[in-house]
C-alpha cells in the first residue's frame, strides 16, 4: 500500500460564495403558493395515520387544513400545542420514516403530502409575523422545578411546566441553550441561528430561568437539586462518545464527529474550518451522515462512510443515505475498522476488515482487508451516557441509560428524565420533545395532587 507523505488538511478550500451556497437551507422553505398547492393535497383523514406516527401526536390534518384556509398562524398554534419545537422538528424530523411514510397519499401515489415542509411553513410564518407567544401561564403555583439540560427534552419539559404556573430553573453545562439543536445538527438543516430563535420563543412563556455553565456532577449535584426543588427533570443527553479502541486513535486527524459538528455549528466563518482532502467517516447513523455531508460541503474531495453492517441496518434513514450519495459521498457497507495508519503523529489511512453475518447471525470478520487513505477520520459510532453524576441517587439505569416509566418518571420519586439519556426509544429530537412534554404532565400532576 502506498500512503502519501503529506497530510492534506486545510481551510479555505472553497470560494466565499461556495460556502454560502453549500451551507444554505438544504430544503428551502415552501413559498406561499407552494404551501397552498401542497396543503390542498391533504385529505383531512379520519384517525389520520400521520398523526399516529408523530411521536408528539401533532394534529396534522388540522394544521394543514388551517393552511388551506389561509390561517398559517392558527396552523402553527395547532402544532405548538403538541410540540413547542415544531419549528425545529419541521427541519430535522426524519418525516420519511414518520408521518410521511404512512400518509395515505404515499399509499395511493407514492407521494406523501410534504408534511414536514408544511409544518415549517406554518411555524416559520408564525415566527416571521412576530406573533405573541401562543400560550399563557397559569397563576403561579409556587412550585419550583429543576431541569437539567437545555436540550429539546429539557426545554419542552420546562415550557409545559411553565404554562402550568410553575417556576423552572434550567441548568445547562454549555454556553448556549438548545442542546443538539444548537450543537449537534448539520448546519444546512437549521440556518440563520434558528435554534436560538426557537429557544427565545420558548422562553417567552415566562417563568423559566436558564443557568448556563452549570454541569451536573461538576457545578451541581442531584442531591442538591432534589433537596432544593419540588421536582427534577433530567434531560442530560449522551455526553460521551464511543471509541474505536484502536492504536493511533489520538493521532491528529482522528476526530469525534459530534465535536466536528459542534465546532462547525459555532463557527463564525466556515472558511476558517480545516477539512481533509480525503475524509473517512466511521459509523452508520445520522451523525455519520451529517459529518460526511459537512466535510464534503467544506470542500473535502473524497468522503467515504464505512459501516460495519449492511445498508438496511444503518440508523440513518434511507433518505439521508441517498442525500449523502447524491452529494458524492461513497457509503461502503460490511467493513469494520481494524487499524489506523499514523505517520508523524497524523492519521494517513484506515484499515478495515470486511464483515459478514455468520450462520448464527453474528457479525464476523472475513479476514479480507481494505485500506482507505484518509487525511481525516471521523468517529461516529455512537454516543454514550455518563452515569457518574447519577451515582448514589437511587436512580435505576439500564445499560448506562436512565430507566423511566411511561410517564418518564425514574425510580426516584422526585426525579423524571427524558431525551437521549433515557433507556429505550429513538434518539430523535421529536421523541425528546415528547419525553419532556409527558414528563411535565406527570410532574404537574404529582405536584398538584
Amino acid at each position, binding site marked *: 500500500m502506498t500512503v502519501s507523505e503529506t497530510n492534506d488538511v486545510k481551510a479555505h478550500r472553497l470560494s466565499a460564495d461556495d460556502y454560502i451556497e453549500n451551507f444554505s437551507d438544504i430544503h428551502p422553505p415552501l413559498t406561499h403558493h407552494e404551501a397552498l398547492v401542497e396543503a390542498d393535497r391533504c385529505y383531512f383523514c379520519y384517525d389520520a395515520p400521520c398523526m399516529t406516527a408523530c411521536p408528539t401526536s401533532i394534529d396534522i390534518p388540522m394544521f394543514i387544513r388551517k393552511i388551506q384556509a389561509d390561517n398559517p398562524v392558527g396552523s402553527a398554534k395547532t402544532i405548538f400545542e403538541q410540540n413547542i419545537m415544531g419549528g425545529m422538528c419541521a427541519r430535522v424530523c426524519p418525516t420519511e420514516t414518520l408521518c410521511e411514510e404512512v400518509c395515505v397519499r404515499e*399509499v395511493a401515489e407514492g407521494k406523501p403530502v410534504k408534511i414536514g415542509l408544511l409544518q415549517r411553513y406554518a411555524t416559520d410564518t408564525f415566527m416571521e409575523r412576530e406573533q405573541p407567544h401562543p400560550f399563557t401561564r397559569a397563576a403561579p403555583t409556587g412550585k419550583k422545578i429543576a431541569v437539567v439540560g437545555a436540550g429539546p427534552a429539557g426545554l419542552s419539559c420546562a415550557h409545559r411546566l411553565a404554562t402550568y404556573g410553575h417556576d423552572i430553573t434550567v441548568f445547562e453545562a454549555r454556553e448556549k441553550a438548545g442542546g443538539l439543536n444548537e450543537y449537534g445538527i448539520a448546519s444546512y438543516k437549521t440556518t440563520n441561528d434558528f435554534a436560538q430563535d426557537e429557544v427565545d420563543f420558548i422562553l417567552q412563556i415566562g417563568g423559566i430561568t436558564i443557568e448556563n455553565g452549570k454541569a451536573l456532577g461538576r457545578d451541581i449535584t442531584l442531591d442538591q437539586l432534589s433537596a432544593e426543588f419540588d421536582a427534577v427533570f433530567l434531560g442530560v443527553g449522551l455526553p460521551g462518545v464511543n471509541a474505536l479502541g484502536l492504536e493511533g486513535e489520538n493521532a491528529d486527524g482522528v476526530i469525534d464527529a459530534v465535536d466536528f459538528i459542534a465546532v462547525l455549528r459555532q463557527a463564525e466563518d466556515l472558511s476558517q474550518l480545516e477539512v481533509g482532502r480525503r475524509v473517512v467517516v466511521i459509523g452508520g447513523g445520522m451523525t455519520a451522515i451529517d459529518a460526511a455531508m459537512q466535510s464534503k460541503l467544506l470542500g473535502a474531495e473524497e468522503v467515504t462512510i464505512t459501516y460495519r453492517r449492511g445498508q438496511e441496518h444503518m440508523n440513518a434513514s434511507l433518505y439521508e443515505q441517498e442525500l449523502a450519495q447524491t452529494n458524492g459521498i461513497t457509503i461502503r457497507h460490511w467493513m469494520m475498522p481494524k487499524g489506523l495508519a499514523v505517520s508523524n503523529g497524523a492519521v494517513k489511512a484506515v484499515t478495515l476488515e470486511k464483515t459478514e453475518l455468520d450462520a448464527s447471525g453474528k457479525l464476523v470478520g472475513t479476514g479480507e482487508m481494505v485500506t482507505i487513505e484518509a487525511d481525516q477520520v471521523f468517529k461516529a459510532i455512537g454516543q454514550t451516557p455518563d452515569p457518574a453524576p447519577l451515582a448514589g441517587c437511587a436512580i435505576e439505569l439500564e445499560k448506562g441509560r436512565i430507566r423511566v416509566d411511561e410517564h418518564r418518571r425514574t425510580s426516584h420519586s422526585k426525579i423524571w428524565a427524558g431525551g437521549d439519556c433515557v433507556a429505550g426509544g429513538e434518539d430523535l429530537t421529536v421523541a425528546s420533545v415528547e419525553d419532556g412534554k409527558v414528563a411535565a404532565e406527570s410532574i404537574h400532576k404529582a405536584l398538584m395532587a
Partner: protein
Amino acid sequence: MADLSTNFLGIRSPNPFWLASAPPTDKAYNVERAFEAGWGGVVWKTLGEAGPPVVNVNGPRYGAIWGPDRRLLGLNNIELITDRDLEVNLREITEVKKRWPDRALIASIMVPCDEESWKAILPRVEDTGADGIELNFGCPHGMSERGMGSAVGQVPEYIQMVAEWCKHYSKLPVIVKLTPNITDIRYPARAAKAGGADAVSLINTISSIVSVDLDNFAPVPTIDGKGSHGGYCGPAVKPIALNMVAEIARDPETHGLPISGIGGVQTWRDAAEFIALGCGTVQVCTAAMTYGFKIVEEMAEGLSDWMDEKGYATIADFQGRAVPNVTDWQYLNLNYVTKARIDQDLCIKCGRCHIACEDTSHQAITSMVDGQRHFEVMDDECVGCNLCVNVCPVDDCITMVEMTEGTDPRTGKPIDHDYANWTSHPNNPMSKQAAE
C-alpha cells in the same frame, strides 16, 4: 369515427360545441381564433342598440370560487353586453361569417323592450349573414336594472311578446336565452314557444355574490369599496343547468322544443350529458375563459371516442336518451336496494367514508376491525345513500351494488323484485288503494 355534425334549427355546425355569448366572442379576433381551434359555432357577444355603446366598469369584473389546487369552480362577472360600437360588431360578424361559412354564427341581441328597438336592429343583424339570433333575456346584472336581460326573462309575457316581434321582423331562427333566476323554468320556456321561438338556450348566469372581501367588507369584485351582484357560471352551475334543461325537455308543453344547453360544460362528458337530456348543441364559456380555446379538441375527440365506443354514429343517436328517465321522486322504485362496497385493494385508508357516515349519516362504516384501521360497510346499517362514494378521494373505490337476492339485513325484508313507489306506499296518506 362518429359524425359530430349538428343541424340545429337548420343551422349546421361541424360539432355541437359552440362558444356562448360572452367575452370570448366579443370581436373577430377572438372568434377567428376559436374557429381555428375547432369550435363548431359561436354566439357573438350580445349586441345592444345603435348609438353610444354601454360602458363597463374599469375595475375588476370577475370573482371566483376555487377547489383544491385553485381549480376554478365557479366564476362570477359584472361585465355588461358588448361595449363596442354596433357598426363595428355588425361589420365583423359579416366578415367572419364570410370567411367561416361552415361554422354556426349566431348574433345575441339585447335592446329595450319595445317593438321599435327590435324592429330597428333585426334587419341589420340579418344583413350580416348570421345564421340566427339569440335573445338575451338572461343577464342578471347591470342591464336588468335598465329593464333588459333577466328583467325580461323573468316575465313570461314579455318573453312571448319579444319572441313574436323577432319572428315577425326577421326570417332568422330565434333562440331565446333563458335566465335561471326564476322559480320554475317551464313558464318562460312555454312563453318562448308560445311566442314562436324556434329554440331556447339555457342557462344564463345565476345572480350571485361570489365572496365578501373581509378587509373592506364589500362584495367581490370590489369597485372602489362597493360591489354589486354578478352572474355566476362555471362547473359549479352545471347541476342547476341540467335540471332546468331536463324540466323543459320533459314538460309536455315544451317537449321537443330544441334546446342549446349552457352551464358549466368543461369536458366532452358534460356535453354528452346535456345532449342526453335533449340538447342539440352545447354552449361553453367558463372552460374556455379558464383554459383557452384548445379545450375543444379534448371535447370533440372525447365525445367522438365515447360515441364510437358506444356505437352511436351521430349526435341524434343519443340525443334525448336520458329524458324519459327523468321522473318525479314519487315514481322512484322503493324496492330497489343498494349497499355500498369498499374495494379494499383500492382503499387508501383515509377514513373519510367512516367519519362522514359516522358523524353525519347512518353509522354504517367501520373504522377499526381487530385493532386495525379498516373501513368496511355494515350492510345491516347501510341505507345505500351514496355519501361515502361521494366523499371518497379514490375513483371507483366505493361503489353501490344492487341487492338482487335474499333479505336486506337492515330492514329484515326480503328483496322484492316488483316495482313499487310512494304513490302506492301504505305510509302515504294520499296513496291510491288498489282496487279490491
